[in-house]
């Protein structure tokens, strides 16, 4: 089921442009501080930076030494310091302590802070409070779209999830709107827009404002991408909480893919070294297995290995000239393929080992039972035992959230006994984000609401309810699942080799809710007939469509759909939609996400650590 060459598929826009833009802009910013300088880079920015530039480029622009921004005194003796950071308070404090200790020592240097993707007023306020406003110059590096693959753009902002869905801070909405604006200037306007979720709607409105303000820039351009679909992560937590079983998702769950690359340890490379490997469409072997259910991967790899062997074997009986040709033309490709093949086989082995050890089969069975809503008692006791055995706090939390959302009730066990009392705070966070649902939210909520509405003075009376929506969020998963047919009825075995629907990404047990919504809306080209679903999703005010009567849109462009995940998307969702695109009328999905996520990342984002 690999998707190697699809002659019928529409051509994808060339996103490599984005990398070039980001790099040029960074160079421009570095040149704003002429002369030799030391560059301090925030750890979270290093991998994205690695993807668009390298040291020699930085050196060319007179960057002398590179440092990581960490809580240590800087050893740099350079006269010019440049900081490349995310707009975070702790970075400002770090810079302030550095500048202030220079001041105390009577030392004058030039300092420049480059915020990526943008600066925040709160950061400037800290600079002002620390008395270094004016001593440092500030700039913005609007690097907010990193093409991780031909069809995947990441904003590399994992904090988006916590900031918005837990804290209700809308600081990244402008960043999203700017990114969308950039895309429309480069690739033309989007004739058909759809969206669901409060954040999606706000981002959309802000983006529209931007376009109006800078009217004319996109006018007259032919749209390259016909549809855009914005979706909030909290519309579908369930999918993101599930264990992944397509290869790319499984690799992410097991080894953590970071910024499009993965560190394969010695157990995978079967040497004493770790290897950093880029995982994308360029890796021919990976490209053919990334979307496959894991159970198909072995067969594929062994077939591939046999073919490779045959290729190598051809050189028996070659004369010296043929051999020369073989060596100069084919050997390199074969060696490359061999290298990739053995890496992925090593990865599979390692995954197998780990999964067998943690009783993956039982785990999957429990998850499926939860999704389908049967054997709840058994699942609950499985989860309890899971906790008792101290398998991993993140896993246990994840299962509890899954139980809670699918069953619409508080599934809290005495987790803090086992994993440290700080989990008290994690629970409180999970509840606020709607990942754990309260057993009886109704009464408390109405009480608060009525109290507040008495005090309401502004016209936005309705908005008060929105503000409480996350508090109130009752998960209606079971009802939604029924309405949207998320659990396929299967007679006999679900053939994972020849998947019939998107459920294959979860072994045929469950169609990802997010992807089903996208499918349904695109089919209808509206939300018509989905009112009940939208209501159950608590999104009645936040489901929108906007179609411009754009006759310039070519049929080619109408086959391209950009899906924007606000708060992160998983590789399983990406695989499911790639499948959908191929199955349903030769379409192609492009993904823009605030970050690639998975269940562990969601859970970790909710835990509380010291400031």
């Amino acid at each position: 089921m690999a998707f190697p060459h699809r002659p019928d598929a529409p051509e994808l826009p060339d996103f490599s442009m984005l990398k070039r833009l980001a790099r040029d802009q960074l160079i421009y910013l570095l040149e704003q501080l002429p002369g030799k300088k030391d560059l301090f880079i925030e750890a979270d920015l290093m991998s994205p930076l690695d993807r668009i530039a390298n040291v020699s480029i930085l050196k060319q622009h007179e960057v002398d030494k590179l440092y990581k921004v960490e809580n240590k005194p800087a050893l740099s003796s350079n006269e010019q310091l440049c900081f490349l950071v995310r707009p975070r308070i702790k970075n400002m404090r770090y810079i302030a302590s550095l500048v202030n200790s220079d001041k105390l020592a009577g030392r004058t240097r030039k300092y420049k802070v480059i915020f990526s993707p943008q600066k925040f007023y709160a950061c400037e306020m800290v600079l002002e409070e620390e008395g270094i406003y004016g001593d440092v110059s500030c700039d913005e590096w609007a690097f907010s779209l990193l093409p991780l693959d031909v069809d995947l753009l990441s904003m590399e902002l994992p904090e988006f999830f916590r900031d918005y869905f837990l804290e209700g801070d809308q600081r990244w909405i402008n960043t999203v709107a700017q990114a969308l604006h950039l895309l429309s200037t480069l690739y033309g306007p989007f004739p058909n827009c759809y969206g669901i979720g409060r954040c999606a709607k706000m981002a959309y409105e802000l983006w529209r404002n931007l376009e109006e303000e800078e009217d004319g820039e996109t006018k007259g351009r032919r749209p390259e991408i016909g549809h855009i679909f914005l979706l909030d992560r909290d519309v579908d937590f369930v999918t993101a909480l599930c264990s992944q079983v397509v290869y790319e998702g499984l690799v992410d769950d097991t080894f953590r893919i970071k910024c499009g690359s993965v560190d394969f340890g010695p157990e995978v490379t079967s040497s004493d070294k770790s290897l950093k490997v880029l995982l994308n469409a360029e890796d021919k072997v990976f490209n053919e297995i990334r979307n496959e259910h894991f159970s198909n991967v072995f067969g594929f790899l062994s077939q591939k290995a046999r073919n490779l062997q045959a290729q190598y074997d051809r050189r028996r009986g070659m004369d010296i000239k043929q051999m020369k040709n073989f060596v100069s033309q084919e050997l390199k490709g074969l060696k490359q393929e061999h290298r990739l093949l053995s890496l992925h086989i090593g990865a599979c082995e390692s995954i197998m080992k780990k999964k067998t050890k943690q009783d993956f089969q039982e785990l999957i069975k429990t998850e499926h039972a939860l999704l389908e809503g049967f054997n709840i008692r058994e699942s609950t006791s499985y989860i309890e035992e899971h906790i008792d055995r101290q398998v991993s706090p993140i896993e246990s939390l994840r299962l509890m959230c899954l139980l809670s959302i699918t069953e619409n009730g508080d599934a809290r066990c005495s987790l803090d006994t086992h994993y440290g009392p700080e989990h008290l705070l994690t629970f409180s966070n999970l509840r606020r984000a709607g990942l754990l649902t309260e057993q009886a939210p109704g009464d408390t909520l109405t009480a608060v609401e009525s109290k507040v509405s008495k005090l309401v003075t502004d016209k936005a009376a309705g908005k008060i309810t929105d503000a409480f929506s996350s508090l109130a969020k009752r998960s209606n998963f079971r009802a939604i699942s029924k309405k949207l047919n998320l659990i396929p009825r299967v007679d006999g075995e679900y053939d994972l080799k020849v998947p019939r629907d998107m459920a294959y990404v979860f072994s045929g047990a469950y169609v990802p809710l997010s992807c089903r919504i996208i499918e349904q809306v695109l089919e209808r080209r509206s939300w018509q007939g989905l009112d009940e679903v939208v209501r159950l999703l608590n999104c009645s005010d936040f489901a929108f469509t906007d179609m411009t009567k754009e006759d310039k849109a070519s049929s080619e462009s109408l086959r391209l759909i950009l899906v924007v995940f606000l708060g992160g998307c998983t590789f399983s969702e990406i695989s499911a939609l790639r499948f959908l695109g191929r199955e349903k009328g030769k379409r192609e999905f492009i993904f823009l996400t605030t970050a690639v996520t998975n269940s562990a990342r969601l859970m970790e984002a909710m835990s509380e650590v010291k400031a």
Partner: protein
Amino acid sequence: TTTGLIVFFQSGRPLGAGVRLGLGLRMNRTKGDEEEYWNSSKFKAFTFDDEDDELSQLKESKRAVNSLRDFVDDDDDDDLERVSWSGEPVGSISWSIRETAGNSGSTHEGREQLKSRNSFSSYAQLPKPTSTYSLSSFFRGRTRPGSFQSLSDALSDTPAKSYAPELGRPKGEYRDYSNDWSPSDTVRRLRKGKVCSLERFRSLQDKLQLLEEAVSMHDGNVITAVLIFLKRTLSKEILFRELEVRQVALRHLIHFLKEIGDQKLLLDLFRFLDRTEELALSHYREHLNIQDPDKRKEFLKTCVGLPFSAEDSAHIQDHYTLLERQIIIEANDRHLESAGQTEIFRKHPRKASILNMPLVTTLFYSCFYHYTEAEGTFSSPINLKKTFKIPDKQYVLTALAARAKLRAWNDVDALFTTKNWLGYTKKRAPIGFHRVVEILHKNNAPVQILQEYVNLVEDVDTKLNLATKFKCHDVVIDTYRDLKDRQQLLAYRSKVDKGSAEEEKIDALLSSSQIRWKN
């Protein structure tokens, strides 16, 4: 339910191993052949080093540059001609320096132009410098270590030579002091990241209008900017009162206060809002920032009695009690360990301090180091169990893991032995003996021990599975004998070592005339 994964686990494993084996072996041979070829042939000049890699990279870069040209040329418009580039590659150092120098005393418009030029949309339309930096091919892995020096690799701590050039005035310092922007204009300018004075919004009504504009624009950064101003210019009572009915703004303020660590104002706010539970949690959260164990303990004491939910209250109390205990145990054990007189500490030095560990870890620790202590001591497992009402299952699991790790099989035995009123002993495990077996196996228990517990598993299938998995041959053989399953016993014969006692035992059974086999 679907069983896709189960299928995979049953069929996948041997296949996977096969692939591995096949590829590994055959590839090795191939590699050998390859070397042989090189050593025997005279074509040594053919090497695959970086050179042709570089060449293909160059070609690719060129192609990429060419493909960009269409785009660049298409969008060249008059607007940009007005700016004096004079053919010099934009983005080069010389250009940049000239620009900053030329602009240092220039007008507002000039600045604005420079700024907008820097924005993505217009920057895309600039002619590109083509030669200075190579376009390494996109979506390409680092094929060879060293050919691509990664940033993370290059971070160094070595001090550098100092060098101080002239610097133009950074554009970030550029301000706009205009005083007559309307609230909506002001908010829009703030969104664009411009520094913009809010001082003229002095009446409460103006301030609130500003806030409302910010909220309706959805940009959290601007909302926070306005809140910073409001926080500075309004008394907290008024600020809180107004925010109580503006939930979006309120959430931004709460997050802002958390981030900058203004705990005092945050607690005041929660108090004002009557959000007692959040107040309590927020206060409790501070303990994370206290390193010193005694201070942390004292701090936790202040948390006890705060208005948490009933359930949380109990946990807070436990947290305090636990840390109190840990401090006592830690002091005592550190002393014992350094004195070097206690065998257990000499044989198994502590890997870390017990301070701030979760309860279960503490229980494990005490089962490991203080198992035999009387209930009266703070460090005894039984005392912990009672104080913190640890459920039986949990206790047994933890004690088992700890004693098995020490290979104290007698303790393990005692853990599951109960005496009834007649004095008969009986084996009982609240967690199920299959779990016991797994834990023992994880701790490398010898077969004799494992066997004993596998035998206690009640379900025959589970017992057979475990016995086969952990190579408890006697159990397997006896079970098949009891089942009178000759076929299975025959099949199992091939799994034991030739000439071993097990094989003998099987042979003896198979030839026994006492057993009435069912097959």
